[in-house]
Protein backbone atom coordinates (compact mmCIF):
# COMPACT_ATOMS: atom_id res chain seq x y z
CA UNK A 1 0.00 0.00 0.00
CA UNK A 2 2.71 2.39 1.09
CA UNK A 3 4.93 1.59 -1.86
CA UNK A 4 1.98 1.92 -4.19
CA UNK A 5 1.14 5.36 -2.84
CA UNK A 6 4.77 6.50 -3.14
CA UNK A 7 4.98 5.20 -6.67
CA UNK A 8 1.74 6.99 -7.53
CA UNK A 9 3.00 10.33 -6.22
CA UNK A 10 6.32 9.83 -7.99
CA UNK A 11 4.57 8.94 -11.23
CA UNK A 12 2.29 11.95 -10.98
CA UNK A 13 5.24 14.26 -10.34
CA UNK A 14 7.11 12.94 -13.34
CA UNK A 15 4.09 12.83 -15.61
CA UNK A 16 2.97 16.35 -14.88
CA UNK A 17 5.81 18.79 -14.27
CA UNK A 18 3.38 21.41 -12.96
CA UNK A 19 2.12 19.06 -10.24
CA UNK A 20 3.57 19.43 -6.82
CA UNK A 21 6.54 21.51 -7.86
CA UNK A 22 6.74 23.05 -4.44
CA UNK A 23 5.87 21.77 -1.00
CA UNK A 24 5.41 24.39 1.69
CA UNK A 25 6.34 23.35 5.18
CA UNK A 26 6.08 25.32 8.41
CA UNK A 27 8.87 23.89 10.49
CA UNK A 28 11.44 24.22 13.24
CA UNK A 29 15.02 25.09 12.35
CA UNK A 30 16.25 21.47 12.40
CA UNK A 31 14.36 20.81 9.16
CA UNK A 32 16.33 23.47 7.31
CA UNK A 33 19.40 21.24 7.07
CA UNK A 34 19.98 20.46 3.36
CA UNK A 35 21.20 16.98 4.33
CA UNK A 36 17.65 16.28 5.49
CA UNK A 37 15.65 17.92 2.73
CA UNK A 38 17.70 17.28 -0.42
CA UNK A 39 17.10 13.50 -0.60
CA UNK A 40 13.34 14.09 -0.56
CA UNK A 41 13.56 16.87 -3.15
CA UNK A 42 15.66 14.70 -5.45
CA UNK A 43 13.43 11.64 -5.06
CA UNK A 44 10.21 13.50 -5.85
CA UNK A 45 11.63 16.25 -8.03
CA UNK A 46 10.06 18.99 -5.94
CA UNK A 47 11.24 22.05 -4.13
CA UNK A 48 10.51 22.09 -0.43
CA UNK A 49 9.95 25.62 0.83
CA UNK A 50 10.65 25.82 4.52
CA UNK A 51 9.51 28.57 6.85
CA UNK A 52 10.95 28.38 10.31
CA UNK A 53 9.04 29.58 13.31
CA UNK A 54 9.56 29.63 17.05
CA UNK A 55 6.79 29.15 19.56
CA UNK A 56 3.44 27.53 18.93
CA UNK A 57 1.60 30.84 19.16
CA UNK A 58 3.67 32.25 16.31
CA UNK A 59 3.14 29.12 14.19
CA UNK A 60 -0.59 29.06 14.73
CA UNK A 61 -0.79 32.79 14.00
CA UNK A 62 0.90 32.18 10.64
CA UNK A 63 -1.62 29.46 9.85
CA UNK A 64 -4.52 31.63 10.96
CA UNK A 65 -3.40 34.38 8.61
CA UNK A 66 -2.80 32.05 5.65
CA UNK A 67 -5.18 30.89 2.97
CA UNK A 68 -6.16 27.23 2.69
CA UNK A 69 -3.54 25.51 0.60
CA UNK A 70 -0.71 27.89 1.52
CA UNK A 71 0.87 25.25 3.73
CA UNK A 72 1.24 21.51 3.29
CA UNK A 73 3.21 20.29 6.30
CA UNK A 74 3.38 21.47 9.91
CA UNK A 75 5.96 20.65 12.57
CA UNK A 76 4.69 21.51 16.02
CA UNK A 77 5.45 20.94 19.67
CA UNK A 78 3.99 17.54 20.57
CA UNK A 79 1.96 18.99 23.43
CA UNK A 80 0.32 21.50 21.10
CA UNK A 81 -1.06 19.13 18.45
CA UNK A 82 -4.45 19.40 20.16
CA UNK A 83 -4.38 23.19 19.80
CA UNK A 84 -3.63 22.89 16.10
CA UNK A 85 -6.44 20.37 15.63
CA UNK A 86 -8.79 22.58 17.64
CA UNK A 87 -7.95 25.42 15.25
CA UNK A 88 -8.69 23.20 12.26
CA UNK A 89 -5.11 23.30 11.04
CA UNK A 90 -4.26 19.59 10.80
CA UNK A 91 -5.69 16.87 8.60
CA UNK A 92 -6.18 13.28 9.70
CA UNK A 93 -3.26 10.99 8.91
CA UNK A 94 -3.63 7.42 7.60
CA UNK A 95 -1.83 5.86 10.55
CA UNK A 96 -1.59 2.47 8.82
CA UNK A 97 0.83 4.03 6.32
CA UNK A 98 3.17 5.36 8.97
CA UNK A 99 6.00 3.61 10.77
CA UNK A 100 4.79 4.23 14.31
CA UNK A 101 5.14 0.51 15.10
CA UNK A 102 8.91 1.02 14.94
CA UNK A 103 8.84 4.02 17.30
CA UNK A 104 10.01 3.98 20.90
CA UNK A 105 6.67 3.09 22.55
CA UNK A 106 6.94 5.97 25.03
CA UNK A 107 7.14 8.58 22.25
CA UNK A 108 4.22 7.43 20.12
CA UNK A 109 2.27 9.70 22.45
CA UNK A 110 -1.16 8.86 21.16
CA UNK A 111 -2.74 11.07 23.82
CA UNK A 112 -1.04 14.07 22.20
CA UNK A 113 -1.15 13.14 18.55
CA UNK A 114 -4.71 11.77 18.47
CA UNK A 115 -7.93 13.70 18.93
CA UNK A 116 -11.29 11.97 19.05
CA UNK A 117 -9.72 8.65 18.08
CA UNK A 118 -8.11 10.09 14.94
CA UNK A 119 -4.38 10.58 14.38
CA UNK A 120 -3.45 14.08 13.27
CA UNK A 121 0.31 14.00 13.77
CA UNK A 122 3.18 11.66 14.58
CA UNK A 123 6.16 12.21 16.81
CA UNK A 124 9.32 12.80 14.79
CA UNK A 125 11.97 13.71 17.34
CA UNK A 126 12.32 13.92 21.07
CA UNK A 127 14.82 14.74 23.76
CA UNK A 128 15.13 16.12 27.23
CA UNK A 129 15.02 19.45 28.98
CA UNK A 130 17.18 18.72 31.93
CA UNK A 131 20.60 19.88 33.16
CA UNK A 132 23.49 20.57 30.80
CA UNK A 133 26.85 21.49 32.24
CA UNK A 134 30.58 21.82 31.74
CA UNK A 135 31.96 18.75 33.48
CA UNK A 136 35.34 20.39 34.05
CA UNK A 137 33.79 23.29 35.94
CA UNK A 138 31.20 21.56 38.13
CA UNK A 139 31.10 18.32 40.06
CA UNK A 140 29.08 15.94 37.86
CA UNK A 141 27.83 14.21 41.02
CA UNK A 142 26.14 17.49 42.02
CA UNK A 143 24.21 17.51 38.77
CA UNK A 144 22.53 14.24 39.72
CA UNK A 145 20.49 16.12 42.32
CA UNK A 146 18.47 19.12 41.19
CA UNK A 147 18.38 20.65 44.69
CA UNK A 148 22.07 21.55 44.28
CA UNK A 149 21.00 24.34 41.96
CA UNK A 150 19.16 26.01 44.84
CA UNK A 151 21.92 25.33 47.38
CA UNK A 152 24.02 28.42 46.66
CA UNK A 153 27.04 26.42 45.55
CA UNK A 154 26.65 27.44 41.92
CA UNK A 155 25.10 30.90 42.31
CA UNK A 156 25.85 33.15 39.35
CA UNK A 157 27.06 30.23 37.25
CA UNK A 158 23.65 29.07 36.09
CA UNK A 159 21.69 30.00 32.98
CA UNK A 160 17.99 29.28 32.63
CA UNK A 161 16.67 28.27 29.24
CA UNK A 162 14.04 30.82 28.28
CA UNK A 163 11.00 28.60 27.83
CA UNK A 164 8.40 28.55 30.54
CA UNK A 165 6.92 25.08 30.01
CA UNK A 166 10.00 22.91 30.62
CA UNK A 167 11.50 25.12 33.31
CA UNK A 168 8.28 25.34 35.31
CA UNK A 169 8.00 21.57 34.80
CA UNK A 170 11.50 21.05 36.20
CA UNK A 171 10.82 23.38 39.13
CA UNK A 172 7.62 21.45 39.84
CA UNK A 173 9.52 18.14 39.73
CA UNK A 174 12.10 19.53 42.14
CA UNK A 175 9.18 20.37 44.42
CA UNK A 176 7.87 16.83 44.08
CA UNK A 177 4.95 17.80 41.86
CA UNK A 178 4.41 15.80 38.68
CA UNK A 179 4.14 17.92 35.55
CA UNK A 180 0.68 16.50 34.87
CA UNK A 181 -0.47 17.75 38.27
CA UNK A 182 0.32 21.42 37.66
CA UNK A 183 -2.91 23.40 37.60
CA UNK A 184 -3.86 27.07 37.39
CA UNK A 185 -4.50 26.91 41.14
CA UNK A 186 -1.23 25.22 42.12
CA UNK A 187 1.10 27.07 39.77
CA UNK A 188 1.43 29.93 42.27
CA UNK A 189 3.31 27.54 44.59
CA UNK A 190 6.11 27.45 42.02
CA UNK A 191 6.75 31.18 42.34
CA UNK A 192 9.11 31.05 45.31
CA UNK A 193 11.43 28.30 44.01
CA UNK A 194 11.36 29.83 40.53
CA UNK A 195 12.33 33.27 41.80
CA UNK A 196 15.08 31.71 43.95
CA UNK A 197 16.41 29.95 40.88
CA UNK A 198 16.40 33.25 38.99
CA UNK A 199 18.29 34.89 41.86
CA UNK A 200 20.92 32.15 41.63
CA UNK A 201 21.21 32.53 37.87
CA UNK A 202 23.23 34.80 35.68
CA UNK A 203 20.84 34.92 32.76
CA UNK A 204 17.68 33.61 31.16
CA UNK A 205 18.48 33.00 27.53
CA UNK A 206 17.36 31.60 24.21
CA UNK A 207 19.05 28.70 22.45
CA UNK A 208 21.90 30.63 20.80
CA UNK A 209 22.69 32.76 23.86
CA UNK A 210 22.55 29.67 26.09
CA UNK A 211 24.94 27.79 23.83
CA UNK A 212 27.24 30.80 23.67
CA UNK A 213 27.21 31.22 27.44
CA UNK A 214 27.95 27.55 28.08
CA UNK A 215 30.57 27.28 25.35
CA UNK A 216 32.45 30.44 26.38
CA UNK A 217 32.40 29.69 30.09
CA UNK A 218 30.05 32.56 30.89
CA UNK A 219 27.99 30.01 32.82
CA UNK A 220 28.74 26.44 33.80
CA UNK A 221 25.23 25.04 34.09
CA UNK A 222 22.16 25.40 31.91
CA UNK A 223 18.89 24.35 33.45
CA UNK A 224 16.58 23.22 30.69
CA UNK A 225 19.47 22.11 28.49
CA UNK A 226 20.06 18.65 27.13
CA UNK A 227 21.42 16.83 24.12
CA UNK A 228 19.59 19.24 21.80
CA UNK A 229 21.86 22.01 23.06
CA UNK A 230 25.20 20.33 23.72
CA UNK A 231 25.38 17.78 20.88
CA UNK A 232 26.09 20.29 18.11
CA UNK A 233 28.91 21.69 20.28
CA UNK A 234 30.33 18.28 21.18
CA UNK A 235 33.10 18.28 18.57
CA UNK A 236 34.54 21.62 19.72
CA UNK A 237 33.53 21.41 23.37
CA UNK A 238 33.83 17.80 24.56
CA UNK A 239 33.58 19.04 28.15
CA UNK A 240 29.90 19.84 27.75
CA UNK A 241 27.65 17.12 29.07
CA UNK A 242 24.12 16.61 30.29
CA UNK A 243 22.29 14.36 32.67
CA UNK A 244 18.86 13.63 34.04
CA UNK A 245 18.93 14.22 37.82
CA UNK A 246 17.29 12.00 40.42
CA UNK A 247 14.12 14.12 40.37
CA UNK A 248 13.79 13.45 36.63
CA UNK A 249 13.79 15.54 33.51
CA UNK A 250 11.30 16.88 31.00
CA UNK A 251 10.83 15.04 27.77
CA UNK A 252 10.18 17.24 24.77
CA UNK A 253 8.78 15.90 21.56
CA UNK A 254 7.97 17.48 18.26
CA UNK A 255 5.31 16.17 15.94
CA UNK A 256 4.72 16.42 12.23
CA UNK A 257 1.46 16.37 10.32
CA UNK A 258 -0.26 17.37 7.10
CA UNK A 259 -1.94 20.77 7.11
CA UNK A 260 -5.70 20.73 6.59
CA UNK A 261 -6.58 22.19 3.21
CA UNK A 262 -3.27 21.25 1.59
CA UNK A 263 -3.70 21.08 -2.18
CA UNK A 264 -1.21 18.21 -2.36
CA UNK A 265 -1.97 15.99 0.61
CA UNK A 266 -0.42 12.90 -0.99
CA UNK A 267 2.94 14.58 -1.42
CA UNK A 268 2.69 16.10 2.07
CA UNK A 269 2.06 12.62 3.43
CA UNK A 270 5.09 11.34 1.55
CA UNK A 271 7.13 14.04 3.25
CA UNK A 272 5.86 12.94 6.66
CA UNK A 273 6.68 9.33 5.76
CA UNK A 274 10.17 10.33 4.62
CA UNK A 275 10.85 12.30 7.80
CA UNK A 276 9.76 9.35 9.95
CA UNK A 277 11.70 6.80 7.87
CA UNK A 278 15.03 5.51 9.28
CA UNK A 279 17.03 7.67 6.83
CA UNK A 280 14.99 10.79 7.42
CA UNK A 281 15.05 10.21 11.16
CA UNK A 282 18.84 9.84 11.27
CA UNK A 283 19.30 13.07 9.31
CA UNK A 284 16.77 14.90 11.48
CA UNK A 285 18.36 13.57 14.68
CA UNK A 286 21.74 15.01 13.71
CA UNK A 287 20.51 18.21 12.07
CA UNK A 288 22.95 21.09 12.02
CA UNK A 289 20.53 23.27 14.00
CA UNK A 290 20.08 20.91 16.94
CA UNK A 291 20.26 17.24 17.64
CA UNK A 292 17.63 15.07 19.27
CA UNK A 293 16.61 11.45 19.54
CA UNK A 294 14.75 10.06 16.53
CA UNK A 295 11.32 8.66 17.33
CA UNK A 296 11.92 5.68 15.04
CA UNK A 297 14.16 3.05 16.66
CA UNK A 298 15.29 1.85 13.23
CA UNK A 299 17.21 5.11 12.78
CA UNK A 300 19.75 3.38 15.03
CA UNK A 301 20.73 1.28 12.03
CA UNK A 302 21.64 4.43 10.09
CA UNK A 303 23.31 6.53 12.80
CA UNK A 304 27.03 6.02 13.41
CA UNK A 305 28.26 4.69 16.78
CA UNK A 306 29.72 8.13 17.53
CA UNK A 307 26.42 9.85 16.85
CA UNK A 308 24.59 7.32 19.01
CA UNK A 309 27.07 7.90 21.83
CA UNK A 310 26.41 11.66 21.76
CA UNK A 311 22.67 10.97 21.80
CA UNK A 312 23.10 8.47 24.69
CA UNK A 313 21.25 5.91 22.60
CA UNK A 314 21.96 3.02 24.98
CA UNK A 315 20.60 4.89 28.00
CA UNK A 316 17.25 5.77 26.47
CA UNK A 317 15.34 3.04 28.28
CA UNK A 318 16.34 4.50 31.63
CA UNK A 319 15.95 8.12 30.49
CA UNK A 320 12.50 7.50 29.07
CA UNK A 321 11.43 5.89 32.32
CA UNK A 322 12.72 8.81 34.41
CA UNK A 323 11.38 11.63 32.29
CA UNK A 324 7.99 13.27 32.41
CA UNK A 325 6.08 14.92 29.63
CA UNK A 326 5.75 18.66 29.25
CA UNK A 327 2.82 20.18 31.10
CA UNK A 328 -0.13 20.42 28.70
CA UNK A 329 -1.81 23.63 29.85
CA UNK A 330 -5.31 24.68 29.01
CA UNK A 331 -5.81 28.37 28.29
CA UNK A 332 -6.18 29.33 31.97
CA UNK A 333 -3.11 27.39 33.11
CA UNK A 334 -1.12 28.65 30.14
CA UNK A 335 -1.93 32.25 31.06
CA UNK A 336 -1.03 31.65 34.70
CA UNK A 337 2.27 30.02 33.75
CA UNK A 338 3.19 32.77 31.32
CA UNK A 339 2.31 35.52 33.78
CA UNK A 340 4.53 33.85 36.37
CA UNK A 341 7.32 33.51 33.81
CA UNK A 342 7.05 37.16 32.78
CA UNK A 343 7.12 38.25 36.42
CA UNK A 344 10.24 36.12 36.93
CA UNK A 345 11.97 37.73 33.98
CA UNK A 346 11.17 41.17 35.36
CA UNK A 347 12.23 40.24 38.91
Amino acid at each position, binding site marked *: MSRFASASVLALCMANPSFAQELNALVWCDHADPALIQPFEEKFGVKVNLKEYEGTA*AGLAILDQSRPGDWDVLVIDGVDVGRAVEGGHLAELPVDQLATADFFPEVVMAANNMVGGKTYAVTEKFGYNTIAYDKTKVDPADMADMTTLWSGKYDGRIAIYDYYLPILGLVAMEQGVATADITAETVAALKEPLFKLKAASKQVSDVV*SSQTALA*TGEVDILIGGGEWLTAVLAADNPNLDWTIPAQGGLRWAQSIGVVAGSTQPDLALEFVKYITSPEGQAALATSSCYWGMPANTKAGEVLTPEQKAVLRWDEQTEFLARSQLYPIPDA*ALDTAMQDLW*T*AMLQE
Partner: protein
Amino acid sequence: MMRNGREHRLGWGLVAPALLWTLAFFVLPFAGMVALSFARMEGRAIVPAFDPGNYIRFATDPVMIKALTNSFEITLVVTVISILLAYPLAAIIAFRIPPRWQRLALLLAVLPFWTSYVVRSYSWLLVLGQNGVINRGLSWIGIGPLELAATRAATVIGFVHFFVMLLTLTIYANLIQLSPNYARAAADLGASRWATFRLVILPLTLPGVVTGAFLTFVLCIGDYITPQILGGNNELTLPQLIMLQLGRSGNFPLASALSVILMGVVTLAYVFSAKWVRLDRV
Protein backbone atom coordinates in the same frame (compact mmCIF):
# COMPACT_ATOMS: atom_id res chain seq x y z
CA MET B 1 -8.92 82.03 -10.75
CA MET B 2 -8.84 79.14 -13.21
CA ARG B 3 -5.10 79.02 -12.89
CA ASN B 4 -5.41 78.86 -9.11
CA GLY B 5 -7.87 75.95 -9.39
CA ARG B 6 -5.57 74.08 -11.76
CA GLU B 7 -2.58 74.67 -9.47
CA HIS B 8 -4.66 73.52 -6.54
CA ARG B 9 -5.56 70.25 -8.33
CA LEU B 10 -1.97 69.82 -9.48
CA GLY B 11 -0.79 70.25 -5.91
CA TRP B 12 -3.18 67.59 -4.66
CA GLY B 13 -2.20 65.35 -7.55
CA LEU B 14 1.46 65.60 -6.65
CA VAL B 15 0.79 64.97 -2.97
CA ALA B 16 -1.72 62.17 -3.56
CA PRO B 17 0.77 59.29 -4.01
CA ALA B 18 2.47 60.14 -0.71
CA LEU B 19 -0.89 60.51 1.02
CA LEU B 20 -2.15 57.20 -0.36
CA TRP B 21 1.08 55.51 0.63
CA THR B 22 0.81 56.88 4.17
CA LEU B 23 -2.85 55.94 4.36
CA ALA B 24 -2.29 52.38 3.15
CA PHE B 25 0.88 51.58 5.03
CA PHE B 26 0.59 53.63 8.19
CA VAL B 27 -2.86 55.05 8.96
CA LEU B 28 -4.91 51.94 8.17
CA PRO B 29 -2.56 49.43 9.87
CA PHE B 30 -2.32 51.73 12.87
CA ALA B 31 -6.11 52.04 13.04
CA GLY B 32 -6.33 48.25 12.87
CA MET B 33 -3.84 47.94 15.70
CA VAL B 34 -5.77 50.43 17.84
CA ALA B 35 -9.00 48.51 17.17
CA LEU B 36 -7.31 45.21 18.06
CA SER B 37 -5.98 46.70 21.29
CA PHE B 38 -9.56 46.95 22.55
CA ALA B 39 -10.37 43.31 21.74
CA ARG B 40 -10.12 40.69 24.45
CA MET B 41 -8.95 37.13 24.76
CA GLU B 42 -11.42 34.41 25.65
CA GLY B 43 -9.34 31.32 26.18
CA ARG B 44 -7.05 31.34 23.18
CA ALA B 45 -9.50 33.13 20.90
CA ILE B 46 -9.50 36.83 20.09
CA VAL B 47 -12.96 38.31 20.58
CA PRO B 48 -13.71 41.68 18.96
CA ALA B 49 -14.89 44.14 21.60
CA PHE B 50 -14.49 47.66 22.88
CA ASP B 51 -12.85 46.69 26.12
CA PRO B 52 -10.22 48.94 27.74
CA GLY B 53 -9.04 45.96 29.80
CA ASN B 54 -5.63 45.77 28.15
CA TYR B 55 -4.91 49.41 28.97
CA ILE B 56 -6.19 48.99 32.52
CA ARG B 57 -3.96 45.94 32.89
CA PHE B 58 -0.97 47.96 31.73
CA ALA B 59 -1.72 50.72 34.22
CA THR B 60 -2.18 48.34 37.13
CA ASP B 61 0.38 45.59 36.49
CA PRO B 62 3.76 46.43 38.10
CA VAL B 63 5.56 44.10 35.65
CA MET B 64 4.33 46.18 32.72
CA ILE B 65 4.96 49.55 34.33
CA LYS B 66 8.47 48.35 35.16
CA ALA B 67 8.99 47.39 31.51
CA LEU B 68 8.19 50.97 30.48
CA THR B 69 10.42 52.51 33.16
CA ASN B 70 13.24 50.13 32.20
CA SER B 71 12.88 51.24 28.60
CA PHE B 72 12.92 54.90 29.65
CA GLU B 73 15.94 54.53 31.90
CA ILE B 74 17.97 52.63 29.31
CA THR B 75 17.01 55.03 26.52
CA LEU B 76 17.87 58.08 28.62
CA VAL B 77 21.29 56.75 29.60
CA VAL B 78 22.04 55.64 26.04
CA THR B 79 21.02 59.00 24.58
CA VAL B 80 23.09 61.04 27.04
CA ILE B 81 26.22 58.86 26.71
CA SER B 82 25.89 58.78 22.93
CA ILE B 83 25.68 62.59 22.74
CA LEU B 84 28.68 62.99 25.04
CA LEU B 85 30.75 60.65 22.86
CA ALA B 86 29.40 61.71 19.47
CA TYR B 87 29.77 65.47 19.86
CA PRO B 88 33.55 65.51 20.37
CA LEU B 89 33.97 62.91 17.64
CA ALA B 90 31.91 64.98 15.20
CA ALA B 91 33.82 68.12 16.21
CA ILE B 92 37.18 66.42 15.65
CA ILE B 93 36.07 65.26 12.21
CA ALA B 94 34.62 68.67 11.30
CA PHE B 95 37.35 70.95 12.67
CA ARG B 96 40.54 68.96 13.15
CA ILE B 97 40.63 66.63 10.17
CA PRO B 98 41.52 68.19 6.79
CA PRO B 99 38.47 68.37 4.48
CA ARG B 100 39.90 65.85 2.02
CA TRP B 101 40.12 63.22 4.79
CA GLN B 102 36.76 63.96 6.40
CA ARG B 103 34.84 61.69 4.05
CA LEU B 104 37.14 58.80 4.94
CA ALA B 105 36.82 59.62 8.65
CA LEU B 106 33.02 59.55 8.39
CA LEU B 107 33.22 56.28 6.49
CA LEU B 108 35.31 54.77 9.28
CA ALA B 109 32.93 56.18 11.89
CA VAL B 110 29.94 54.44 10.32
CA LEU B 111 31.81 51.22 9.48
CA PRO B 112 29.97 49.22 12.18
CA PHE B 113 26.70 50.04 10.36
CA TRP B 114 27.81 47.65 7.64
CA THR B 115 27.53 44.55 9.81
CA SER B 116 24.29 42.83 10.76
CA TYR B 117 22.66 44.25 13.86
CA VAL B 118 22.09 40.78 15.31
CA VAL B 119 25.64 39.62 14.56
CA ARG B 120 26.98 42.80 16.14
CA SER B 121 24.97 42.15 19.29
CA TYR B 122 26.21 38.57 19.59
CA SER B 123 29.74 39.82 18.97
CA TRP B 124 29.40 42.17 21.93
CA LEU B 125 28.34 39.18 24.01
CA LEU B 126 31.70 37.58 23.24
CA VAL B 127 33.62 40.81 23.87
CA LEU B 128 31.93 41.43 27.24
CA GLY B 129 31.99 37.83 28.50
CA GLN B 130 33.95 36.47 31.45
CA ASN B 131 36.59 35.27 29.01
CA GLY B 132 36.02 38.10 26.56
CA VAL B 133 38.45 40.68 25.27
CA ILE B 134 37.66 43.27 27.96
CA ASN B 135 37.97 40.95 30.93
CA ARG B 136 41.15 39.40 29.56
CA GLY B 137 42.62 42.87 29.14
CA LEU B 138 41.60 43.81 32.67
CA SER B 139 43.08 40.61 34.07
CA TRP B 140 46.53 41.67 32.79
CA ILE B 141 46.39 44.65 35.14
CA GLY B 142 44.94 42.62 37.97
CA ILE B 143 41.32 43.75 37.71
CA GLY B 144 38.24 41.62 37.36
CA PRO B 145 36.69 39.65 35.97
CA LEU B 146 33.79 42.08 35.79
CA GLU B 147 30.21 40.97 35.28
CA LEU B 148 29.49 42.72 32.00
CA ALA B 149 27.60 40.32 29.76
CA ALA B 150 23.91 39.71 30.45
CA THR B 151 23.55 42.99 32.34
CA ARG B 152 21.92 46.36 31.72
CA ALA B 153 25.43 47.75 31.19
CA ALA B 154 25.88 45.35 28.27
CA THR B 155 22.61 46.55 26.75
CA VAL B 156 23.71 50.17 27.11
CA ILE B 157 27.13 49.45 25.58
CA GLY B 158 25.52 47.68 22.61
CA PHE B 159 23.14 50.57 22.03
CA VAL B 160 25.80 53.27 22.46
CA HIS B 161 28.04 51.55 19.92
CA PHE B 162 25.24 51.86 17.40
CA PHE B 163 23.88 55.28 18.21
CA VAL B 164 27.18 57.14 18.53
CA MET B 165 27.54 56.60 14.79
CA LEU B 166 24.09 58.02 14.12
CA LEU B 167 24.59 61.05 16.34
CA THR B 168 28.04 61.69 14.91
CA LEU B 169 26.48 62.04 11.48
CA THR B 170 23.70 64.41 12.54
CA ILE B 171 25.99 66.58 14.66
CA TYR B 172 28.72 66.62 11.99
CA ALA B 173 26.13 67.73 9.39
CA ASN B 174 25.32 70.67 11.67
CA LEU B 175 28.89 71.58 12.59
CA ILE B 176 30.14 71.59 9.03
CA GLN B 177 27.53 74.21 8.08
CA LEU B 178 28.75 76.64 10.74
CA SER B 179 30.77 79.53 9.41
CA PRO B 180 34.17 79.86 11.20
CA ASN B 181 33.35 83.58 11.46
CA TYR B 182 31.08 82.87 14.47
CA ALA B 183 34.05 81.61 16.50
CA ARG B 184 36.28 84.42 15.21
CA ALA B 185 33.71 87.06 16.15
CA ALA B 186 33.31 85.59 19.61
CA ALA B 187 37.09 85.57 20.06
CA ASP B 188 37.29 89.20 18.91
CA LEU B 189 34.76 90.06 21.58
CA GLY B 190 36.95 88.43 24.21
CA ALA B 191 35.13 85.16 24.70
CA SER B 192 37.17 82.22 25.91
CA ARG B 193 37.07 78.96 23.88
CA TRP B 194 34.73 77.42 26.46
CA ALA B 195 32.45 80.47 26.40
CA THR B 196 32.48 80.43 22.59
CA PHE B 197 31.42 76.80 22.60
CA ARG B 198 28.80 77.21 25.33
CA LEU B 199 27.26 80.47 24.09
CA VAL B 200 27.74 80.28 20.31
CA ILE B 201 28.60 76.85 18.89
CA LEU B 202 26.40 74.68 21.08
CA PRO B 203 23.19 76.70 20.62
CA LEU B 204 23.76 76.78 16.87
CA THR B 205 24.30 73.01 16.70
CA LEU B 206 21.40 72.18 19.00
CA PRO B 207 19.08 71.23 16.08
CA GLY B 208 21.56 68.56 14.97
CA VAL B 209 21.99 67.29 18.53
CA VAL B 210 18.26 67.16 19.22
CA THR B 211 17.49 65.56 15.87
CA GLY B 212 20.07 62.84 16.54
CA ALA B 213 18.86 62.48 20.13
CA PHE B 214 15.27 62.12 18.96
CA LEU B 215 16.20 59.45 16.43
CA THR B 216 18.24 57.70 19.10
CA PHE B 217 15.31 57.85 21.50
CA VAL B 218 12.85 56.45 18.95
CA LEU B 219 15.09 53.63 17.76
CA CYS B 220 16.34 52.75 21.23
CA ILE B 221 13.02 52.66 23.06
CA GLY B 222 11.51 50.46 20.34
CA ASP B 223 14.43 48.06 20.03
CA TYR B 224 13.95 44.42 20.95
CA ILE B 225 17.13 42.73 19.78
CA THR B 226 19.82 44.43 21.86
CA PRO B 227 18.21 44.03 25.30
CA GLN B 228 17.14 40.50 24.39
CA ILE B 229 20.64 39.37 23.41
CA LEU B 230 22.85 41.48 25.64
CA GLY B 231 20.60 42.00 28.66
CA GLY B 232 20.39 38.30 29.45
CA ASN B 233 16.65 38.59 30.05
CA ASN B 234 17.39 39.80 33.55
CA GLU B 235 14.86 42.58 33.10
CA LEU B 236 12.24 43.28 30.48
CA THR B 237 11.83 46.34 28.32
CA LEU B 238 8.54 47.26 26.68
CA PRO B 239 9.44 45.81 23.24
CA GLN B 240 10.47 42.53 24.91
CA LEU B 241 7.12 42.44 26.70
CA ILE B 242 5.34 43.03 23.38
CA MET B 243 7.29 40.19 21.78
CA LEU B 244 6.38 37.86 24.66
CA GLN B 245 2.70 38.60 24.04
CA LEU B 246 3.07 38.01 20.30
CA GLY B 247 5.39 35.04 20.06
CA ARG B 248 4.53 33.12 23.16
CA SER B 249 1.10 34.05 24.48
CA GLY B 250 -0.57 34.79 21.16
CA ASN B 251 -2.23 37.68 23.00
CA PHE B 252 -2.41 40.05 20.05
CA PRO B 253 -4.85 42.49 21.73
CA LEU B 254 -2.49 43.08 24.67
CA ALA B 255 0.50 43.31 22.33
CA SER B 256 -1.42 45.90 20.29
CA ALA B 257 -2.29 47.93 23.39
CA LEU B 258 1.36 47.92 24.48
CA SER B 259 2.40 48.96 20.97
CA VAL B 260 -0.09 51.85 21.01
CA ILE B 261 1.36 52.95 24.35
CA LEU B 262 4.88 52.77 22.90
CA MET B 263 3.69 54.80 19.94
CA GLY B 264 2.22 57.36 22.35
CA VAL B 265 5.55 57.65 24.15
CA VAL B 266 7.37 58.27 20.88
CA THR B 267 4.77 60.87 19.88
CA LEU B 268 5.23 62.68 23.20
CA ALA B 269 8.99 62.65 22.67
CA TYR B 270 8.48 64.24 19.27
CA VAL B 271 6.16 66.90 20.70
CA PHE B 272 8.75 67.82 23.33
CA SER B 273 11.62 67.99 20.86
CA ALA B 274 9.73 69.27 17.79
CA LYS B 275 10.97 72.80 18.32
CA TRP B 276 14.54 71.72 17.57
CA VAL B 277 14.14 68.64 15.40
CA ARG B 278 15.44 69.32 11.90
CA LEU B 279 15.24 66.16 9.83
CA ASP B 280 16.87 67.99 6.91
CA ARG B 281 20.06 67.95 9.01
CA VAL B 282 20.17 64.15 9.02
